[in-house]
């Protein structure tokens, strides 16, 4: 089995052996899966586009993965397993990636999957008018995507980029015809993939329907089974309110739901009729990032004061009724490679410290509302949250944080829920005090680069806007080394600097996916590595 370390070593051509492995959710394996039936799954988030290239919502992946697949699958330890590609090789200089594709894969529109089709995907992704933020990411390192022969794809990079395979292996491959569709950007049935299900119909505001792809026979090597999916039909219904999802499951209107509020989790945990499971996401925790270039948060004392003013543990306990985990670091504990546990409890709730720090920072007076002031100006920090990424009761969580900041330290947090355009503008121009966010889609330390490099050097989601030279130097150092242990140490150093010394952000909780299903539904589970809910490929209905 090829581990990340071998990959990072760039040791020339390596062909992946097939691995078979049990996956979470398939533990009740004694029963033989039954073919047929249809499943309805209530989900929280309606995708804003069904084009998998353009959709950046973590919660949309579980839907889109049914129809669109990528070159390599992941193993629980972060390694790679064959999928649409049978194997890959990295050249000595780390600038040429060669993928050997399967020769038996067809898109649902009938086209054959070949190297030219995959190459077209990468060429298209490089066009700025097509792919938005992705073109600024991994794909921008590709200088050339060529089909060496019908089933060999060669990607040439213009410079070495360590996390390249992580990014590229997960990109969904669309059929060539899809790119000519007028619906390309909105996505939908006109965009064909190779998945075990075929997107049949999308009813905006209500549901998205799939049917089984009978020709499917190219599941990832580590999937629960091979051959076509068990289910005949599959429907995802959009139920944005958590109470409605719970009600729909308990009254039997849907078979599975994801996104379960802390209040409702007990209902399913305690019931013999339902199975409840959850998994921590990899990536970054839901964190308040402080803008270090503008307003009160430019002062490190104010930032540290906020860290000490909020009793995060108690808030998480109260809002999520004990069903979510408090976060401490710049990564989530689910990132087994680079999460440094030593950060836990190295800082925390200390209202006395918070108030002392604010006094030191000059915010000594109080106004009629009980808020601190300096030179007659209230200590107000604008929290800019994108409307589109409010989920999992984060609006309630932010209100709880807001209340604590006021009660414990006299800080006013002004919550602003804004539309995508406003959000993009304010993020670009730095017109905010705090941006709360979490990411679940980047691994292998990638997300650290996006969060902590200066914006001009690719830190596209550097919400704290730090340009600290030591941070950039560490990141350069980590990118150029292939020694995972060394990288771990560098990231640990960065974590202590970012949170303890500079207080760039306050991690709140570890994003978590929850699934509740009626007990006759088998094979529901999470993806082995990213820990997002898995597609419905392995799901079957117990008669």
């Amino acid at each position: 089995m090829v581990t990340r370390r071998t990959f990072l070593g760039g040791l020339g051509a390596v062909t992946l052996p097939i691995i078979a492995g049990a996956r979470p959710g398939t533990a009740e394996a004694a029963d033989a899966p039954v073919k047929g039936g249809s499943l309805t799954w209530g989900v929280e988030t309606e995708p804003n586009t069904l084009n998998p290239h353009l959709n950046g919502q973590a919660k949309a992946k579980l839907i889109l993965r049914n129809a669109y697949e990528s070159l390599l699958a992941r193993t629980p330890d972060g390694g790679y397993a064959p999928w649409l590609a049978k194997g890959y090789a990295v050249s000595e200089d780390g600038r040429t990636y060669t993928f050997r594709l399967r020769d038996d894969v067809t898109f649902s529109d009938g086209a054959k999957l070949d190297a030219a089709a995959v190459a077209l995907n990468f060429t298209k992704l490089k066009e700025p008018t097509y792919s938005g933020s992705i073109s600024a990411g991994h794909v921008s390192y590709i200088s050339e995507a060529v089909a060496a022969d019908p089933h060999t794809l060669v990607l040439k990079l213009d410079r070495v980029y360590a996390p390249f395979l992580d990014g590229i292996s997960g990109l969904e491959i669309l059929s060539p015809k899809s790119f000519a569709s007028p619906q390309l950007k909105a996505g939908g049935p006109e965009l064909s993939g190779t998945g075990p299900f075929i997107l049949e119909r999308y009813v905006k505001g209500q549901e998205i329907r799939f049917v089984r792809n009978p020709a499917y026979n190219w599941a990832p090597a580590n999937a629960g089974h091979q051959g076509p999916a068990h289910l005949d039909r599959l429907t995802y219904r959009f139920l944005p309110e958590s109470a409605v999802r719970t009600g729909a499951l308990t009254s039997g209107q849907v078979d599975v739901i994801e996104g379960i509020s802390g209040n409702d989790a007990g209902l399913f945990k305690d019931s013999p009729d339902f199975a409840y499971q959850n998994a921590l996401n990899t990536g970054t925790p839901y964190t308040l990032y402080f803008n270090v270039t503008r307003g009160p948060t430019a002062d490190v004392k104010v930032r540290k004061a906020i860290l000490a003013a909020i009793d995060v543990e108690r808030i998480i306990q109260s809002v999520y009724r004990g069903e979510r985990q408090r976060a401490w670091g710049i990564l989530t504990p689910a990132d087994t490679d680079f999460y440094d546990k030593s950060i836990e409890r190295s800082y925390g709730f200390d209202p006395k410290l918070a108030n002392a720090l604010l006094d030191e920072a000059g915010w000594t007076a109080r106004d009629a509302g009980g808020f601190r002031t300096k030179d007659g100006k209230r200590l107000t920090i604008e929290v800019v949250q994108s409307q589109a990424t409010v989920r999992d009761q984060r609006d309630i969580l932010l209100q709880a944080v807001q209340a604590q900041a006021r009660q414990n330290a006299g800080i006013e947090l002004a919550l602003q829920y804004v539309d995508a355009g406003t959000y993009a503008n304010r993020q670009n121009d730095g017109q905010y005090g705090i941006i709360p966010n979490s990411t679940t889609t980047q691994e292998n330390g990638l997300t650290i680069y996006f969060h902590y490099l200066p914006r001009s050097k690719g830190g596209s989601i550097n919400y704290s806007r730090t340009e600290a030279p030591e941070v950039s130097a560490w990141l350069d150092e980590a990118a150029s080394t292939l020694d995972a242990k060394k990288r771990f140490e560098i990231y640990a150093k960065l974590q202590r600097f970012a949170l303890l010394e500079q207080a760039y952000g306050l991690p709140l909780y570890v994003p978590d996916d929850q699934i509740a299903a009626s007990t006759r539904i088998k094979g529901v589970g999470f993806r082995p590595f990213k820990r997002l809910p898995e597609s419905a490929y392995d799901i079957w209905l117990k008669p």
Partner: protein
Amino acid sequence: MDPQNTTAIRRSPAAWLPERLGLKRGGLALQIAARIGSGLLVLWAAVTLSFVSLQLAPGDIVSLLIGEQLRTPEVEATIRAEWGLDAPLPLQYLSYLSRILHGDFGRSYILQTDVTGLVLSQMLPTLKLTAAALVVALVFAVASAVSTAGRRVPRAIAGALELTLVSTPSFWLGILLLFVFSFTLKLFPVSGDRSFSALVLPALALGLSLGAVVGQVLREGLERALEEPFALTVRSWGTSDLVLRLRHCLRHAALPAVTLTGWLVGNLLSGAVITESVFGRPGLGRVTVEAVLGHDLPVVLAVAILSAFVYVALSTLVDVLYLLLDPRLRDESRETGR
């Protein structure tokens, strides 16, 4: 929501042109043509107003379209060209007008999809909801008016119930209905538009308060009709009270209620916006709310123009029907009534 306020809305936007043209006594065909013409002019003004507001809208369309993508002048220029934002304003206006004439409302900023297709695909669930709510409203109004008109105690009870319904926000009524009948009693589906039963609770939430208003107007009309001489005559034939009310008086009482049409349509459309959100139904209302929150102006304006169209078309139709049905109106000077 008050019937008292409907006077202000009763006047049809299609009535002014005939007046200006001095068509108080003109030929019927000419009058009808003039009314349709004035309706069209109002629509043209609504479209123009939409275009102007698009231009004046705060926030830059380009930055909304770019999103989190890296901003380079090159990317901006491509997007401007792609969306036709680089043409001079009058040209943009003309192409906007001609596109709308051809039923093309442009492309959604957020969903990147054809607005016309989006709006059309969401029309059916909204039509179903508004039609069902209209049925609820009318059934409630007729039942309440017929059974209580002129009867002291029942009408007081019905009046109190109607006052409560008119004063209850439809979204709160919806939440309560959902909680009781769907979550607790599990009688109706919680959400969506997949079956007829999913229509029941939203239609009640939306229809009841409107029915209460219509019921009040209907009851007053019914009570007046019951006091008319013809009611006495009919009674003297030995007709039962219910038949008298339903067959003879209701027709008289319905006329003032018809003038509520415009108000009713407006409120059904407005109410659908909120009701659809509460019940998680697909439809124009929900699309509108999402578009408003997402600053997706082409979608918002398409829905606005569409609803203006429905409103103007319906009130013009009512006007024309009145002209055809009631010859007196053709001669009546409308000058003071405006």
